[in-house]
């Protein structure tokens, strides 16, 4: 039986797709057969971040509608063994996504895969609700910023009341993933710290990804940031995946970079 993990946040633009792509890639690199599904019908982006946009022939909605088989729609990653992508439809409207349809596809995938990563769209509408509906675990992607934290808290409420697990009296295991973290700004009192966000959301911390120019570089070239060599964000994602798989690893990149004396004196 596969483990189903939703990557969610409520707020848009915080790094759900970036995290989904790197998380799924990391799981596959660790030898686990993994599929990552884009639930953002009409606004698909996971294919671009994974660099497979030119290989999408059939998508998630085609499979739900019975117009294609799962085998036809799954895109096998060319760089990483064990990794598959199921793209969202770019043209259909969201009504094409049905609970029964999603259940059937996830059920079929469960037979073949160890991990099913569901990349949720922003918001708390149907696509987002369905992405989290069948989840066993959830990565809550949060920026250290007021609107993102509030939205994450809202999503936590939904995870514990509206999902299949919640309805059967079980709970979805929640993990906090803080992205775009700038330790220098935290040190200057300009940004919520990891501890602040943990205090407010009160869920276990899985990873902290530092703010990094490399994330844009990675998406420019259609390669998940975790695959870039010698990059802090990649290292942070690798740590996150290792922790998810049960390894104990200290959090890195939480301290401000050392600045020169003059900079420290006048930099503020």
């Amino acid at each position: 039986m596969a483990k189903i993990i939703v990557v969610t946040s409520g707020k848009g633009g915080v790094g759900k797709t970036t995290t989904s792509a790197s998380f799924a890639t990391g799981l596959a690199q660790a030898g686990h057969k993994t599929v990552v599904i884009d639930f953002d019908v009409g606004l698909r982006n996971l294919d671009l971040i994974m660099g497979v946009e030119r290989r999408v022939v059939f998508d998630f909605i085609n499979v739900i509608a019975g117009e294609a088989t799962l085998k036809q729609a799954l895109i096998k990653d060319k760089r990483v063994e064990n990794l598959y992508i199921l793209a969202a439809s770019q043209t259909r409207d969201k009504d094409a996504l049905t609970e029964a349809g999603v259940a059937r596809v996830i059920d079929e995938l469960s037979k073949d895969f160890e991990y099913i990563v569901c990349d949720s769209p922003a918001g708390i509408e149907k696509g987002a609700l369905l992405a989290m509906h069948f989840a066993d675990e959830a990565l809550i992607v949060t920026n250290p910023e007021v609107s993102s934290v509030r939205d994450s808290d809202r999503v936590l409420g939904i995870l514990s009341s509206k999902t299949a697990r919640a309805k059967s009296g079980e709970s979805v295991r929640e993990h906090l993933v803080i992205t775009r973290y700038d330790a220098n700004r935290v040190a200057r009192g300009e940004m919520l710290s990891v501890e602040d966000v943990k205090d407010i959301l009160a869920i276990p911390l899985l990873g902290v990804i530092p703010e990094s120019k490399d994330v844009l570089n990675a998406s420019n070239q259609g390669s998940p940031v975790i695959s870039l060599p010698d990059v802090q964000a990649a290292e942070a994602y690798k740590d996150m995946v290792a922790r998810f798989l049960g390894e104990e690893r200290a959090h890195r990149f939480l301290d401000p970079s050392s600045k020169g004396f003059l900079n420290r004196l006048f930099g503020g």
Partner: protein
Amino acid sequence: MAWMDIFRANKPSTAQLAKERLQVIVAHQRAGALHAPDYLPKLQKELLEVIRKYVAVGEDAVNIEVERDGDTEILELNITVPSSKN
């Protein structure tokens, strides 16, 4: 630590303000999730419709609040009707 910090030492940092605001928002949000079931607005609307069959009351005549007292939730219903003059 810029030397300018001396002059703004007593001012709370913006991160501190953010945390305080969030604590209030989140507490409110969670209390709301606990205390206000989804059906409340509909219940309020339907009650108003029923009352209006008998008494002419305004839009704000029905007021519903849910309070939590230990393990029990108390649904408090206030209906304001105009005093009847014979």
